[in-house]
């Protein structure tokens, strides 16, 4: 697995690279700003790019724009966006444009090596990743009344895992239940939320996120 790391803080970038290398991942390039990152992607043939949202010169959305460009120009390269802040709108916007091979994680997740490596693996395989905190915020939005209230606690958990971009198998594994059970949960959820049945992979994520982001 070849990964390029884009992060303007040197301590942070080096720390992150060491974590990745310790986990057996090849760091194919390091960038402190978006132009360097784009140049590295051209040369380094990475599987995944890890990029901070805020980079010089304006420290606003350089990483987001670079992510969009990479997904447009190199469909084979997965991008994991790291954000300091919990910004559901930003996450949903990025995902709705590029539902495949894109992930949005809170920056502090990098200290959770297992979670980070798993997320890298999923975007490399063309899947979607949404930070659990974002999903929790979406699920936790105070609604006066709605279909979400109809869901059982278990169904809400399954909905959250779906929203994070996990497949049925991954959910079954996480919850320690069988694949059939998960399928039943998913069918019930989709029925209660009046969503189209039988959607697969990223389409399912989009539908769930769109529902939650309403």
């Amino acid at each position, binding site marked *: 697995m070849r990964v390029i790391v884009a992060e303007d*803080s040197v*301590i*942070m970038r080096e*720390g*992150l690279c*060491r*974590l990745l290398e*310790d986990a057996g991942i090849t760091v194919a390039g390091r960038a402190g700003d978006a132009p360097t990152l784009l140049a590295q992607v051209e040369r380094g043939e990475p599987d995944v790019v890890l990029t901070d949202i*805020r980079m010089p010169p304006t*420290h*606003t*959305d350089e990483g987001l724009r670079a992510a969009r460009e990479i997904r447009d120009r190199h469909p084979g390269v997965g991008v994991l966006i790291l954000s*300091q*802040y*919990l*910004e*559901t*709108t*930003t996450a949903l*916007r990025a995902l709705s444009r590029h539902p495949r091979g894109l992930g949005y994680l*809170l*920056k*502090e997740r*990098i*200290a*959770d*090596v297992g979670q980070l490596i798993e997320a890298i693996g999923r975007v490399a395989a063309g899947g979607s990743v949404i930070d659990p905190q974002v999903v929790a*915020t979406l699920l*936790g*939005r*105070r*609604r*006066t009344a709605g279909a979400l209230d109809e869901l059982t606690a278990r169904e809400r958990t399954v909905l959250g895992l779906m929203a994070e971009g996990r497949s049925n198998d991954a959910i079954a594994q996480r919850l320690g239940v069988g694949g059939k059970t998960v399928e039943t949960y998913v069918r019930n959820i989709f029925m209660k939320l009046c969503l189209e049945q039988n959607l697969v992979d990223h389409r399912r994520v989009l539908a769930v996120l769109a529902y939650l982001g309403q």
Partner: protein
Amino acid sequence: MAAAAVAAVAVGLCGAWAYARTGATAGDLGRDLTVGWSFAGAGLIAWWRRPANGTGRLMVLEGITWFLGNFQAGGPALLVGLSAWFEALNLAVLAHLVLAFPEGRLTDRSSRLVARAGYGLVLAGGLLRAITYDPRADAGATYLTCPDCGVNALLVAPAARLFTTVDLTYRALGGALAVACAVLVVRRWRAGTQPRRRALLPAVLSLFFVVVFVVWDIVLRLLFPARAATVPGALLIASDLGQAAVPVAFLVGLLRLRLRRAAVGHLVLEIGPDPSLARLRDALARVLDDPSVQLGLWRPELARYVEPDGGPLPLTPAPGRSVTPVAHRGQRSAVLVHDPALDDDEALLPAVSAALRLMLDNAWLHSEVTERLAEARAASSRLVQAADSERRRLERDLHDGAQVRLLTALMALQRVDVRLRQSDDTMLRDTVAEAGRELRQALTELRELAHGIHPGVLARDGLGPAVVAVAERSALPVVVAVEAVRCPPVIEATAYYTICEALANATKHARARAVTITVRHDAGVLVVEVADDGVGGADLSRGTGLRGLTDRLAAVGGALGVVSPAGAGTRIRAELPCG
């Protein structure tokens, strides 16, 4: 003045009595008295209203001398002689009046020359004519029809042929002077500007009558010497009525200036509360009846006068222009370049200057206040922007400093944790795990703190996502409807903090169950509304939060309104300039 009035009445009555002796009809007497007393009466009014102007006195003099010729009709022989001598004195006075109008004094050499020549002709020529005039022999020599007029005491050379020659020469010279007068007046008329011409109109009018009368008299005498005395009555009436109108014209012309002076007072009213220099100039042109008027404002830094459009006004005016400087607090302030005719009324321009000074004072105060207000507004706007950028800097510092350090520490701890997985020291592993949890908690708190100080999403994606983020953190259900429109950063930030403050109030004090946040853009105004269903009773004058918002909104040119009846919820509405 009273003496002049008495004299005019007395001379008029005596003249009429003398005139009546010649067998003049009541109509003749009426016409005669009308013309003479018109001049005297109009002159007295002019004298009273414009004492500094000689026109009134000249008109009274004209009114008195008008009757002098009548005394040839009889009475003491000396009176008949003097009357014959000064019969035409009124014409010389009229010439003087015409040439002196409207200033009431002779202003140029040729006018003085012609006026003096008129008086000289009457004094010398009239005397010559009087000493050769025998009323009994030359019955048709005057306008009086008196075959038995009195005896001329001045008569020294009774020779009919000599008198005819002297009389004709006298009249011809008089006619020549009348023509000279006409030339001078026409010259002044042609050289004059609009206000000048208007002022000259009575002089031209009267001159027209006199010239017509004199020319007609001479022509009649030359062509039909025999019929000279039998002037058609209708023509006489027309001539006299015309002459009676002349003093009225003089009076009106003179008082017009006074009316204009009164109109200066309207200047201040007309300019109103917005005394822009261009409007001031236009109003001056209207009030002074002089479209060519120029207004210059003294600019000390340029050391010259500048016109309202910014063009320089030459310090030395063009020839034929008059200059009235306006001093203000003892210093040069403004200058009016105008038609010299306006100087005719010596009180008009001082009045205009005074009004101008007043208005410039006003304008100066107005611009001063406006400037100060703009300065104050700019200063508070700068303060708000400075505070905003300080917040951004603080947030950046937290992000680049503390957050990076905490994350790096967490990563290091993570590596320790990985190594410790094989270790049996559960206590050590628990301690590392606990340190990790604490670090994560610190990171979360730091993230919220930094976000509260300045949300990055606001500058990046605008109010919509930022408000959504606020709503997500809210303990209350929040309905968000934000139009996707971008405004300048300071406006967006102000709208954002307004929403945060209103939401915090609704959460903390209003005991609300739900909040609605709407942001819409309407004709260059960003309208932000936060409504809750709480207990109401919020007051702008209490609570530092709302007052701080009012100040902040005012600093960026916005306004805050709060409707919060007790028990019926609170609606906070902010309007901000955008686009």
